[in-house]
């Protein structure tokens, strides 16, 4: 597994599950139906409210193609940003770094931070990688993803993130940090910029137990 993806710390079965999910989904692609209507065949039950029900594909800054279900197994701190963002996104990322720094050492390695781009047109894996470097995000524990327009819209809808592209090609968007538990369910959200991190740190610690 690539270093930027969450380490399968919890157990080997979790890693196998992730692989199995990927393979199972691939196996169903042969169906003539569009993605909306294929039967979901996950090898283990995913909770009804889990974002890991989504079948969409995402590409990391390492060029790795994944499904969100590949992120399961540890809590995920998720935000949507875009790399040419001049104002809010660096602050959101900084808030996430402050959250990471606030975690007790024994928890820190058991949580992953995921950034997903609004900008399906400009944010290539290369742009994401440059953003990772610019923001000083370590390879371990931080996942940067891009996806297609429809999939971005769908994920945003599930997270409760509103956004739209303005005339300059910049994105106006909600500033929201979401905590998913290990099974992909939303357990906490913080909106705004320069947030107070204490509450989120507590929720993460609880989710990582």
């Amino acid at each position, binding site marked *: 597994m690539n270093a930027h993806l969450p380490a399968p710390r919890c157990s080997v079965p979790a890693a196998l599950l992730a692989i199995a999910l990927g393979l199972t989904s691939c196996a169903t692609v042969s169906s003539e139906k569009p993605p909306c209507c294929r039967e979901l065949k996950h090898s283990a039950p995913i909770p*009804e409210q889990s974002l890991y029900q989504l079948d969409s594909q995402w590409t990391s800054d390492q060029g790795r193609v994944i499904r969100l279900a590949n992120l399961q197994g540890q809590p995920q701190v998720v935000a949507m940003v875009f790399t040419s*963002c001049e104002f*809010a996104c660096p602050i959101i990322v900084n808030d996430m770094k402050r959250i990471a720094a606030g975690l007790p050492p024994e928890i820190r390695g058991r949580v992953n931070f995921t950034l997903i781009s609004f900008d399906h047109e400009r944010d290539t894996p290369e742009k994401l990688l440059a953003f990772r470097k610019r923001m000083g995000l370590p390879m371990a524990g931080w996942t940067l993803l891009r996806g297609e327009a429809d999939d971005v819209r769908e994920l945003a*809808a599930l997270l409760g993130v*509103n956004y739209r592209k303005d*005339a300059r090609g910049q*994105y106006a968007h909600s500033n929201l940090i979401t905590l998913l538990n290990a099974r992909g369910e939303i357990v906490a959200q913080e909106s705004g910029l320069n947030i107070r991190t204490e509450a989120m740190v507590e929720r993460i610690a609880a989710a990582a137990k």
Partner: protein
Amino acid sequence: MNPRTNNLVLAAAVMLAAAAMCAAATAVAAAPVAPAGMAIIAAGEHRPLFVLPNEPQTVPVAQFALDKLPVTNGEFLDFVRDNPRWRRSAVKRLFADANYLKHWAGDLEPGEAARTNQPVVWVSWFAAKAFAQWKGKRLPTVAEWEYAAAASPRRADGENDPEYQRALRHWYSMPAPAELSRVGAGLPNCFGVFDLHGLVWEWTSDFNSAIITGDARGDTGLDRQLFCGAGSAGAKDTGNFPAFMRYGFRSSLKAPYTVHNLGFRCAKDL
């Protein structure tokens, strides 16, 4: 008639452009053939209710096809027959709340409360999107929907048709009727599309594009405009209450929500 001169000037300009547009949609021989059950919506411009600072006042809308009618219970039944994962008893809570198709008698039985020629309601954004994909179509964007819905029976710029605006305000001020009418009972607009107003609200693909809180670049003025009592001061068309209602309604939605008077129709690129 609206006394503000800038509105008049704008109205006149839009009127000229739009009169040509709606005519073009029906009269030009080279116009593309509409897919069955769909109307061609000629290219034009949508004027959003709210624009960000320094943004142009209009958004171009490319020519597209739009279902003439909202999707009915009968059509949705075909969809769930063919796609078990979207049946009421099978749908995942992530994709539709607990009220999904609650007025149907059963998984494959609309029943008395959901006749086959009535618009389907109690459907989530995900279900609407899946139906559209199954049909080889998509949901219209807010800009496309609003642009098509601005047309009156006589003209593409229905916002400058006072009689039409009065009729719209009347509908938008009425509570939802206990029983929905069948689709296609009213007059089509000049594009040939029925029921954009007066029957049910409709999902759009980017319903979650309204920036009302915590916007990226801190345009809190926009927030204030929307939330405080003087809200309409910042919007372009203070007389367009139906547009405000639609904006507010969309802003209140989340993708898994289902509502008793919220349905959808599909669009398609040409």
